[in-house]
């Protein structure tokens, strides 16, 4: 426990920390997190000012660049969509204290699975969208699931550390996709596959611009629906289903779970598979909604790792993940617009540090006392 003394004199204001013994009300963590973001923006502003910039102008610019009009807001959401899914993936594994850091690889394998439907081809190019998209989603979900299941199985049966195995599988996934992109599915020797037919792409808002002119130029695609549905489904699983109860119990006290007759081995495998599958779905959404062809670089942009951070910041809560992902989407987007481009990265970093530090306030209570000091 720490204690700061403003002044050693009698009657000085003292700030004391004491462990928080009660459960704070539900709004409290939200308020603290918002406060932390606010503090981070102030700190970031100070740094910007010192480096000769105008913090207000910079922030105004970032805000405009990511939320300013419907067009950039739409871009922000496009950036947030894959993060929502990878963060959901991490959150369900972390809830059971399974440290799946392979969302990156599972994401890429998901994209590969969806691509295989188009490029192998498993379905002819003239297939309708109503068949194509579900088939691709299923394939990506399944491939990501397999990529999560492998470390899950190794962990459950042979107690292999899932951190290492899931991390290693990231590299395998990238090499695997490279093999297909450079070789089998390469378009005339370029490091990318041919473009998917329109039926095999997720519809964008702009696709409907003819009937609704307002949608002109908006890139938000149907992957967002995957993200939102997945978040809602995960909320129900975690807080309202028998399976979710088992996951929460194992995560909090595996010995008690065993005592309650819960099969930990089976759940380890299932949860890792679900986690991989959600990340894989993220890959589907990105490849079919944004890239629209199989290509390593844009898929290998670190969405899986960002998902880890977002899951933590959202305290593993599925619905909070949507909001935090949008914040991160905005920072990524602004990163492309602002010079020097390090600024949004720095703000991202400061926000992260502040949010982690603010966790402290959830566990400790500050007490202000005006009392005698020895």
């Amino acid at each position: 426990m720490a204690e700061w003394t403003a002044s050693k004199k009698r009657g000085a204001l003292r700030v004391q920390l004491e462990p928080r013994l009660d459960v704070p009300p539900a709004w409290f963590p939200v308020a603290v997190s918002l406060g932390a973001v606010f503090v981070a923006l102030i700190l970031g502003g100070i740094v910007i000012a010192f480096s000769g910039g105008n913090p207000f102008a910079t922030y105004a610019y970032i805000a405009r660049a990511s939320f300013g009009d419907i067009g950039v807001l739409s871009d922000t959401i496009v950036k947030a969509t894959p993060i929502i899914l990878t963060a959901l993936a991490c959150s369900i594994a972390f809830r059971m204290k399974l440290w799946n850091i392979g969302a990156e690889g599972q994401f890429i394998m998901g994209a590969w699975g969806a691509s295989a439907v188009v490029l192998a081809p498993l379905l002819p190019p003239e297939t309708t969208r109503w068949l194509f998209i579900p088939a691709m989603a299923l394939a990506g979900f399944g491939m990501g699931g397999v990529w999560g299941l492998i470390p899950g199985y190794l962990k459950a049966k042979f107690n292999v550390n899932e951190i290492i195995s899931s991390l290693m599988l990231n590299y395998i996934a990238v090499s695997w996709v490279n093999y297909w992109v450079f070789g089998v599915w390469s378009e005339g020797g370029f490091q990318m596959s041919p473009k998917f037919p329109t039926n095999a792409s997720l519809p964008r808002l702009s696709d409907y611009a003819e009937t609704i002119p307002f949608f002109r130029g908006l890139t938000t695609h149907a992957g967002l629906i995957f993200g939102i549905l997945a978040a809602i489904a995960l909320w129900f699983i975690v807080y309202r289903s028998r399976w979710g109860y088992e996951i929460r119990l194992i995560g909090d006290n595996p010995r008690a779970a065993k005592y309650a007759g819960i099969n930990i081995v089976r759940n380890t495998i299932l949860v890792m598979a679900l986690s991989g599958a959600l990340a894989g779905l993220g890959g589907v959404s990105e490849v079919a909604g944004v890239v629209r062809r199989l290509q390593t670089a844009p898929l290998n942009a670190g969405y899986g790792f960002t998902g880890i951070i977002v899951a933590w910041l959202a305290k593993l809560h599925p619905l909070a993940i949507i909001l935090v992902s949008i914040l991160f989407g905005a920072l990524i987007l602004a990163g492309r617009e602002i010079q020097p481009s390090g600024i949004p990265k720095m703000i991202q970093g400061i926000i992260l540090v502040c949010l982690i530090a603010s966790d402290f306030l959830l566990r400790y209570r500050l007490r202000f006392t005006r009392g005698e000091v020895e």
Partner: protein
Amino acid sequence: MCTCFLVYLATSPLEHAVTANTTTDLQQPPLAVEMRGIVKRFPGVLANDHVNFELRAGEIHALLGENGAGKSTLMNILAGLYKQDAGTIKVKGKTLEFSSPRDAIKAGIGMVHQHFMLVPSQTVTENILLGLDEPRFLMRLQEYDKKIADLGDKYGLKVDPRTKIWQLSVGEQQRVELLKMLYRGADVLVMDEPTAVLAPQEIEGLFETLHSMVAQGKSVIFISHKLNEVASIADRVSVLRRGKVTASGVPAKGVSRQELASMMVGREVALAVDKKPKTPGEIILDVKDVHAENDKGLPCLRGLSLHVRAGEIVGIAGVAGNGQVELSQVIAGLRPCKKGQALLNGKKVSNRDTRYGIEHGMSYVPEDRTHVGSSPNLSVTDNVIMKNYRKPPISKGSMLDMSAATKFAQELKEAYDIIVPTVNTPVRLLSGGNLQRVILAREISGHPNFMVAVQPTRGLDVGAIEGVHRLLLTQREADAAVLLISEELEELIALSDRIYVIYEGRMMGEIKVEGAEPDKTLMDAIGLMMTGTPLEQIHMEGAPTHG
């Protein structure tokens, strides 16, 4: 403050009274601790309501009270762990404000908690030095080993400074905690239910240590639920009830157990149980030649056979660590059975999915309520549905009906007097006794036809113990079979129809209990068997036996 403390250490209590405390009556030993008007409020409970508490130097002061009465809270305040909402603390006549345990230990107050805070992979010495400023570098640890060994000798706390914590028994770990406090110069020692986790011989050892500590000028506050212990060790007794003081510093010699019990509970408590004669039914649990290994891979059950019939309570007596806990785990399917088997209603339960037993009417009150029996960060509701979340009305298909679960938890809270603000509170915030009630409520509410209860009354107050005993007898009335594993001989004799005594995982014999009165020959015989003498070799007059 510091100087005063040094003076105090350097002088015996009597001299101290003369030199430093001229205002007090010379006949009275000085007060080591004086707490006045302490108030501590938790959401929904007033844990301490203007509590006054006085500890004289050189005394052993017992603090009694029901579960949730506020004993641990009061002592946590004294040890600087919690901050009181109102009230003052004086240590050796000086008013002090503690904002951390560090401040309290600086003032000479050290607390040994019920859950030890030691690092398992480190040695005794390393644990004791942890958090201290010296030594600056971890060199010359041998010197410190020696210092600690000497300190141990001084107070009769035998433990090898070089062993790693994980190799120590619970009793030895407790000694390390005590040494830690003594090493930091504590002269007021607070012990929160120290005997709850100890075997009988270890309890005697602890008492000797406490006596030698007070003989050397230290003072001790001792929380316990065991009234016979209080009578034998304490000089004075204070009692808390629902956060208020109901007895303050009464001499322990002058009060009877019955009086203490009613001061704690606020009504007459039946210390004896009322067990009606009953003819047992058919065999429910049948354990046949069971062999098993403990966590370290050593044999701990070596061919144990026993059975329990419907409508009877069968006790297992034995000194802690002779295989009782492992036996319960084999029955519950939580520990592999190397040879032999356990049958429930004729069907195998050993080496079988734990869930099988749960779904076939077995309930199990485990010994370790915080690590096995409950999930600390989950709510009371989540904890009480651990066994029945697979069945309606809690389960609705693959979903959980949360309103049914909340209603169920609410009902148990009422029926079993669980003191907690709401059923959404995480159980880590419950007092020890209340957590035990949550577990018992869950295990009994499933209407088991067989129940294993390991130390079900550990840490409970007399009123609650009476309640648990009644509940166990109700199970017997309802024709359930009950296997009761306990280290309290009196409890076993009072409740059981038959008692098996085990020693090093082997059966020493079986005794039929007729009257509820603990009879001397019976107690002696069980005592002998518990230390390894088989029944055949004991010559008993008059005591009813059964081969």
